[in-house]
């Protein structure tokens, strides 16, 4: 039924896009006050309601077509194709095709390896390049539009070899995208991490503008935003809880990951739904050429990846799995309670793709991960994400790329309490059906349009208790909620005049809470004021937001540029948590009559400069971001199984501003970066801190990270990471008193104190045992800095009338070893 609705919806959108050519639509009245929640009811006059969007898209395409392309008048032809690795047939994302003879003419491959170029007739040398691969030079005679696919060969770095390249990528300077970081998987593999389990989410925390939610934690704050304000996409499927083991490890198995991109500012129109950042993770598609297996054995987990062609160069598959085994040691215990205890997690990634001719390709992928903790007869937890994605790439003509994605994703949490005669289980979760269509139209050189739609049907399971037959606990189920989140977007990137390029776009998003539902209103004390019931299918509350996105780049010379951006983002889903980082029991709730969408506006300005023939990249960015309708809680809010959870919420505003400096070296035996962030994040809630502005917990004035990866010789790779940051803002007591024969701390100001500054050095050495396997030795916290994980107060043993402050350190010097293999 739901699928039918989605297909219907999708068909409507496609039809509306197809009908854009009709000019009368364009002339129809602008922005009506009707909600965007339009397409689920067949009886509606959809065409009229779609008018503003159609107008927007038509306008963009007209503009795009009207923008003069340099060299207009000559006959022009399109070249397109796919860029892949010759080694394993993996698609290369963000590879460059440059026309040597035409200055500044080139194209980069999209997330599916597709590129398209439009150039005049002639004979040209095409230079195709991708970091870590040899530059490919190909001479082509262009006298008709054609498809040319490229395969690049990996570059084996040898010590002492100086790679000379006059054509090295300068995309960080020339592209309109700012505030973007890409992680090189080679670096991710070398960078030391806690317990040797390499982790993307911990590695991105080393980038400027990104801060860790806590020591050893995978949660992160982007430019002052909360951990729930990051849109984390795994092969286009949103991941609701990206962590295992209570946040100490991420759900992304680094073996399966191909490309990681983080955007914290100037967020393009194709992304939406979260305020602060986009983390776009793409996994490997699987070896197209031959079967391969790889894996690793570490202190806490074992990984195994199998991949190979379905039909050589036509299709491939990949299966990657990981499981921890700390609990295996518990089995050795003679205590029957301990040896029956389980404590583990696992991940399973499975993918397959197949080419249906030159123009079509389909991808199927799935992710399944679970954490399990069970202490027999007392308490048990089981939580995790599941996602299934089907994608279809289609190329219309030479310049028009389309990708359609259908995703199912789900996050569930279950907590079993008690045993046998009084056992009950508490469950909660969220489930999504997500349909997305993205189109990319390569009009000419430096002139392209992206547009698309997205419809998500959310089902929220806020909590239920299932009691065993003999239990004296009642079976209770809070009402599920349903919502429809829609978006249409379009953006246009082009060079206005030589050396000045802009990307402007608009995202129109809407969010509707759907019946059946019971809604309440609350007074200022959080008590119920009124109640109303809504029937099934009723659009109860609808929020519509216009989110403008803008970015511009002005090239100052060959190697430097100035960039500026503005974006507005809206977030309709909110994370309620009794913790400041991700937790298994996290509750995602929709925007309702009581919870307004969160909004953020951000402006950023940056100077980008490359040195030494693009070997070094440097940037300085400043930003200012303001956020509305942020959520905090009434004191002592009890979020679990509470039908009136919305009455416990407080709404306020926040703002963050700062400067980020990055110097990065991406090529050669020595790579790495130095990042420094100077920033401030403040929040204001009428009901908190007497309404006074207070520093957000993640407000850390200084944040430094230094990352060095060095290929010493063909057998040894060394790396080091050093981080320093100002301590978190924290609340300490300002007095105490006796009540009910208990000594109680008295709190006055929120976050008025600071934890001590945090710093740490990690080292890692990888010893290659031949071509296929390696041993990695790493040390976390090499100089054994006693960082403060938490500070608490206790009565002094020598004088119980006095109180002392005690600091807890979580991770001292921790060595680890991991064995990695491939065959």
């Amino acid at each position, binding site marked *: 039924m739901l699928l039918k609705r989605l297909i219907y919806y999708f068909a409507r959108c496609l039809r509306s896009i197809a009908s854009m050519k009709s000019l009368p639509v364009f002339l129809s009245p602008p922005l009506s006050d009707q909600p965007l929640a339009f397409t689920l009811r067949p009886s509606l006059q959809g065409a009229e309601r779609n008018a503003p969007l159609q107008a927007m898209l038509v306008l963009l395409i007209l503009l795009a077509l009207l923008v003069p392309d340099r060299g207009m008048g000559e006959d022009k032809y399109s070249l397109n194709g796919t860029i892949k690795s010759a080694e394993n047939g993996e698609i290369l994302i963000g590879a460059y095709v440059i026309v040597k003879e035409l200055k500044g003419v080139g194209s980069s491959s999209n997330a599916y390896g597709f590129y398209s170029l439009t150039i005049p007739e002639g004979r040209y040398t095409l230079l195709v390049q991708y970091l870590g691969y040899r530059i490919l030079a190909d001479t082509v005679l262009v006298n008709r539009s054609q498809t040319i696919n490229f395969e690049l060969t990996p570059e084996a770095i040898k010590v002492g070899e100086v790679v000379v390249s006059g054509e090295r990528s300068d995309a960080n300077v020339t592209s309109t995208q700012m505030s973007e970081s890409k992680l090189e998987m080679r670096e991710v593999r070398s960078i030391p991490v806690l317990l040797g389990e390499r982790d993307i989410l911990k590695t991105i925390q080393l980038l400027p503008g990104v801060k860790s939610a806590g020591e050893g934690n995978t949660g992160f704050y982007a430019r002052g935003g909360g951990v729930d304000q990051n849109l984390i996409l795994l092969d286009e499927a949103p991941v609701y809880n990206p962590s295992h083991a209570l946040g100490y490890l991420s759900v992304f198995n680094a073996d399966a990951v191909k490309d990681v991109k983080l955007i914290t500012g100037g967020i393009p129109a194709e992304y939406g739904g979260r305020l602060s950042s986009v983390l776009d993770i793409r996994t490997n598609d699987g070896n197209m050429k031959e079967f391969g297996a790889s894996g690793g054995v570490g202190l806490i987990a074992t990984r195994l990846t199998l991949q190979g062609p379905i039909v050589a160069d036509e299709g491939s598959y990949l299966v990657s799995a990981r499981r921890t085994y700390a609990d295996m040691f518990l089995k050795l215990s003679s205590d029957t309670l301990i040896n029956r205890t389980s404590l583990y997690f696992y991940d399973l990634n499975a993918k397959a793709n197949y080419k249906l001719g030159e123009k079509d390709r389909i991808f199927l992928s799935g992710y399944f991960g679970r954490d399990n903790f069970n202490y027999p007869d007392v308490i048990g937890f089981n939580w995790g994400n599941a996602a299934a994605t089907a994608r279809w790439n289609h190329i219309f003509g030479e310049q028009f790329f389309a990708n359609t994605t259908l995703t199912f994703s789900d996050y569930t949490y279950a907590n079993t309490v008690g045993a046998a005669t009084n056992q009950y289980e508490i469950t909660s979760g969220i489930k999504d059906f997500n349909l997305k269509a993205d189109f990319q139209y390569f009009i000419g050189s430096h002139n392209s349009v992206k547009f698309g739609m997205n419809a998500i049907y959310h089902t929220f399971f806020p909590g239920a208790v299932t009691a065993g037959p003999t239990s004296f606990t009642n079976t209770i189920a809070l009402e599920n909620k349903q919502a429809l989140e829609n978006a249409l977007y379009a953006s246009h990137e082009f060079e206005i005049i030589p050396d000045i390029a802009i990307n402007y776009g608009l995202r129109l998003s809407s969010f509707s809470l759907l019946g059946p539902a019971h809604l309440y209103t609350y007074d200022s004390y959080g008590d119920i004021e009124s109640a109303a019931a809504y029937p099934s299918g009723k659009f109860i509350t609808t929020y519509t937001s216009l989110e403008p996105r803008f970015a511009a780049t002005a090239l100052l010379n060959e190697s430097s540029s100035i960039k500026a951006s503005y974006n507005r983002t809206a977030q309709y889903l909110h994370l309620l948590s009794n913790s400041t980082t991700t*937790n298994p029991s996290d509750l995602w709730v929709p925007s309702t009559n009581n919870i307004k969408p969160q909004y953020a506006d951000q402006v950023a300005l940056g100077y980008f400069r490359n040195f030494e023939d693009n070997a070094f990249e440097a940037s300085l960015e400043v930003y200012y971001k303001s956020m509305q309708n942020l959520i905090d809680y009434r004191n002592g809010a009890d979020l679990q199984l509470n039908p009136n959870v919305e009455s416990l919420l407080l709404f306020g505003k926040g703002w963050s501003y700062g400067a980020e400096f990055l110097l990065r070296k991406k090529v050669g035996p020595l790579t790495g970066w130095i990042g420094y962030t100077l920033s401030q994040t403040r929040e204001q809630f009428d009901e908190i801190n007497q309404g006074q502005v207070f520093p957000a917990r993640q407000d850390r004035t200084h944040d430094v990270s230094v990352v060095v990866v060095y290929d010493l010789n063909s057998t040894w790779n060394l790396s080091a990471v050093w981080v320093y940051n100002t301590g978190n803002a*924290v609340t300490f007591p300002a007095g105490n008193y006796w009540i009910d024969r208990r000594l109680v701390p008295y709190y006055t100001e929120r976050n008025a104190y600071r934890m001590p500054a945090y710093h740490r050095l990690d080292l890692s050495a990888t010893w290659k045992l031949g071509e296929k396997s390696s041993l990695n030795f790493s040390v976390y916290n090499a100089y054994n800095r006693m960082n403060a994980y938490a500070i*608490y107060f206790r009565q002094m043993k020598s004088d119980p009338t006095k109180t002392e402050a005690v600091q807890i350190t979580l991770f001292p010097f921790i060595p680890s070893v991991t064995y990695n293999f491939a065959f």
Partner: protein
Amino acid sequence: MRTRNTQTMKTFLWQPPGGVVGLSIVLTALLCSCEQVIGVDLNQAAPQVVIEGIVTDQPGPYSVTLTKSGNYFEQSLYFPPVTNALVVLSDDIGDRDTLKEGIPGTYQSSSVLRGMPGRTYALKVETGGKGYDAFSTMPQKVAIDSLFAVPRRGSSSEPGYDIYLLFKDPPELGNYYRVNVHVSDPLVAMDSIDGRRYRLYSDKLTNGNEALYRVRARRTVVPGDTITVDLLSLDKATYEYYRTLNDILTSDRSPTSLSPANPNTNLSSGSLGYFTAYAIDTKKIVLR
């Protein structure tokens, strides 16, 4: 025989939800954690009036205690009393009693007022040019059906007894309880068996049911000791006060837990403390 009995009891255990904190502690314990004493400079807040007023269904006098808060690092067992305050207790049937100050800072009622379930009581305090008031409605008394003690067994548990109490929750949702456990031994302070923690229960998940609750005796008690268990029927505001107070006292100190704040009080003017009217049911058991 006895062991089997213990097992059955264990399976009857009711625990409040939200064991994630427990899981977090397990994981943290697996990793090394080291502690060291450090110096922290704290601001000192101006002393605040702290009010504690309790009316029960037992015969009076009922007392209201007024003190002032102190410096965090200079704790003492003695906090300055607030003397010469005007303290008035009244109920919803028109009784009104101006409390008399006995020992400094402690104000006691006369026989004018009697604590009765179902009645609403009001407290009014005036001191230092400021007024404070609060209301509390005494819930109907819920009685303990039975009480028994089982010696603790098992290699991983400390010796002692597990005390169980059985009572039936009334059919309407919204009942709140606190359980206090005392030991008869006069050398043991009244609440030392309890520690700082509160034993609080709500009928959110067990409404209308007869349920068995385990109150673990922390201190080693010996055969011959008499254990007294009080079941307090609280109103919602008192439960919320104790619950949020308990949160502060038992915070897991994790940096990811939410910012601490003062307990949710029913007193006006944002003062510290609370005023409550509760009904008590008491049962005793002699350990064998």
